[in-house]
C-alpha cells in the first residue's frame, strides 16, 4: 500500500507510467496475437483475476482469510446463467444481477465477520460447502451434476460477442474497471480504516472505527466482484458444473492472491496469470498442478513476503536504476553511496 498524503510524488508517477504501459499493451495485444485459444486463456486469466482482486480486499487489505470465495463465484455464475438462458434477461443486466445476488448472499456472512483468524476462515469454508451442496443437489435449478448447458454468449447493446477478441475486451475491460476501482481505496478513509483493522483491530476500535461493519463491507465487496467474475465465466465457457465451484476453486483464488503478493492488486493479476495460464503452457505439469501450487504457497510463506508483485517491482526498479545510470554514465552501484 502506498501511504496517504504522500509527498513522494515521483514514485507515484513511475507506477502510473508502468500501469499505462500495461494497459496500452493489453489493448494492442489482440491485434498482435490473434490466436483464438490464447485470447480465450487471457480471458480466463482476466476473469480469475477479478475474483482474486476481490479476495485481496478481504485478505490483503482487511486481513480476513476467506477460503469460501468459490461460493460467490458460483452464485454469480448460476444466477447469470439462469437470468440469460431461462429468463431472457439481457447480458449487462445479468452481469450486474450476478454481482448483486452474490452480494446479497454475502449478507448471510455478516454475523461471521465478528470472528477472526482461523475461526473466520473455517466459517467461510463451511459456508461455501453449504452453497456447493445446494448447487449440487438442487437439480431443478442448477442442473446439478448434469451441469448447466446452453448458456448464451455475452452480448452488449444487442451485439453478440462471438469473436474471442471481443469477449477478451469485455473480460479484460471489466478486470481493468475492478482494478482501478480498488486502486482508489488506498489513500482514502475507507482504505486506511480497513488496513488499520488488519494491523490491530482493538486499536482501531479504540479510535472509534466500526470494525465489524467495515469487515462486513469488505465481504460484500469481495462477494460482488466474485459474482461478476462468475457471470463472465459462465458466458465465456457456456457450461457450468458443480465441480467448478468446490473448495478447490476457493483455494485457487487464495493461491492467486497469495503468490501474487498479499495486499497487492497487481499481484492478484499476476497470481491469476500464473495459476490459470501456467498449466496451459506447461502441459507437463498437468496432473502435478495443484501439488506445485501447494508447494509454491508454502514457499511463499517461508521466503517471499511480497510474492510475485514484490519480485516484479524489484526487477523493474533494478532495470530502471541500471538504465538511469547508463544514461547518466554514472559508475556502477557499489562505488557510490545509496
Amino acid at each position: 500500500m502506498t501511504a496517504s498524503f504522500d509527498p513522494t510524488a515521483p514514485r507515484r508517477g513511475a507506477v502510473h507510467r508502468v500501469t499505462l504501459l500495461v494497459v496500452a499493451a493489453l489493448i494492442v495485444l489482440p491485434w498482435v496475437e490473434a490466436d483464438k485459444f490464447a485470447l480465450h486463456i487471457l480471458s480466463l486469466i482476466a476473469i480469475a483475476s477479478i475474483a482474486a482482486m476481490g479476495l485481496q480486499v478481504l485478505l490483503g487489505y482487511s486481513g480476513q482469510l476467506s477460503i469460501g470465495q468459490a461460493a460467490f463465484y458460483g452464485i454469480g455464475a448460476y444466477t447469470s446463467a439462469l437470468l440469460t438462458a431461462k429468463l431472457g434477461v439481457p447480458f449487462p443486466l445479468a452481469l450486474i444481477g450476478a454481482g448483486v445476488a452474490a452480494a446479497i448472499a454475502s449478507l448471510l456472512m455478516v454475523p461471521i465477520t465478528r470472528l477472526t483468524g482461523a475461526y473466520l476462515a473455517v466459517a467461510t469454508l463451511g459456508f461455501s460447502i453449504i452453497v456447493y451442496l445446494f448447487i449440487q443437489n438442487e437439480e431443478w435449478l442448477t442442473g446439478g451434476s448434469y451441469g448447466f448447458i446452453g448458456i448464451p454468449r455475452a452480448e452488449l447493446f444487442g451485439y453478440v460477442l462471438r469473436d474471442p477478441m471481443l469477449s477478451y475486451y469485455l473480460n479484460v475491460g471489466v478486470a481493468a474497471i475492478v482494478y482501478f476501482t480498488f486502486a482508489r481505496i488506498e489513500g482514502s478513509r475507507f482504505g486506511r480504516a480497513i488496513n488499520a483493522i488488519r494491523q490491530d483491530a482493538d486499536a482501531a476500535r479504540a479510535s472509534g472505527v466500526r470494525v465489524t461493519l467495515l469487515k462486513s463491507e469488505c465481504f460484500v465487496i469481495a462477494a460482488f466482484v466474485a459474482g461478476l467474475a462468475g457471470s463472465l465465466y459462465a458466458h465465456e465457457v457456456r457450461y457450468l458444473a458443480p465441480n467448478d465451484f468446490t473448495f478447490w476453486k476457493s483455494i485457487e483464488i487464495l493461491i492467486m492472491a497469495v503468490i501474487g503478493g498479499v495486499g497487492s492488486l497487481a499481484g492478484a493479476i499476476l497470481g491469476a496469470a500464473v495459476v490459470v495460464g501456467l498449466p496451459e503452457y506447461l502441459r507437463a505439469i498437468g496432473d502435478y498442478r495443484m501439488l506445485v501450487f501447494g508447494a509454491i504457497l508454502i514457499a511463499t510463506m517461508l521466503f517471499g513476503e511480497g510474492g510475485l508483485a514484490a519480485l516484479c517491482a524489484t526487477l523493474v526498479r533494478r532495470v530502471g536504476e541500471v538504465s538511469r545510470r547508463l544514461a547518466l554514465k554514472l559508475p556502477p552501484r557499489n562505488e557510490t553511496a545509496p
Partner: protein
Amino acid sequence: MNTSAHDDAWLLEARSVTRRFGGLLAVDAVDLAVRRGSVHGLIGPNGAGKTTLLNLVAGVHRVSSGVLRFGARDITQHSSARRARAGIRRTFQNLKLFGEMTALENVAIGLHAQMRAGFFDAVLATPRHRREERSIEDRSMTVLHFVGLAGVAHVRSGALAYGHRRLLEIARAMVARPTLLLLDEPAAGLNVTEAAHVSELIARIRDAGTTVILVEHHMDVVMRVSDEITVLNYGRRLAHGTPAQIQEDPGVIEAYLGRSGENEGAQA
C-alpha cells in the same frame, strides 16, 4: 437525571465499580470522580488494578457491577467504539500503533469517526472525499506539531524511535479533540528528559480543554502534572486527594510510595 451545577463539575464518575475475572477480583467497589478540565492521576503498586480500571472506563471490559457516568450519560453498557465516538479516547500501555502506516496515517485513524466518506466516495473521488482528506491531513499535521512529531510525519510508525512512538500514540488519541483522554503509562520506558517532555505535553493537553486520567509509574510525572490523584491497592481505593495530600498520606506511603522511594530514589 440531575443536571445541577455540582454534577456538571464531574466529567467522569465511577460508582462502586467492580470487575471480576473468574475468581480474581481485579477492581473492588471503586469510586472515582474526575473533575472536568483536570488531570487525574491513578497510581498504585503493580497489580493494584489501575489498568483494569482504565479499561473499564474505556469499555474494553464490562463492569461486573457498578455504574459509569460520562457527563450526564450512563455509559455502563456502551461499547468501547461507542465511547470513543462519544469523546473518550485512550492510549495503550503496550503501544498499539499501526506499524505499517506512517505517523500521519496513524493519526488520521483517530479522525475516522468524525468523517463520513466511505467506499463509494473513495472510488468516485467525490467532493466529500476530497474535502475530508484535506481536513484530515490538516488536523493530523496540527496534532503532530502539537506533540512535536511534525518532522517524522511520513515515516513508517514501525521505524520510529520508542520515545516518538509513545508521542504518536498520544497524538492519535488527541486528534479528535476528545473530552476525556485516558493515558495508560505514557512515560513507560522513557528517560528523564523524555518523561519531562510528556509531563509538559499532558499539561498542555489539559490547558487545551481535555480532561485526562493518567495511569503512571513515573512518580515525578504524576506528581508534577496531576491536579488530583486516586491511589489503588489490591483493587480497592486506598486514598484520594491532591499530590501534596497523597505524598503525606501514611497509608499510601506504606503501601506504595515508601517502597518506590527506596527503589527509585526521590525524583520529584
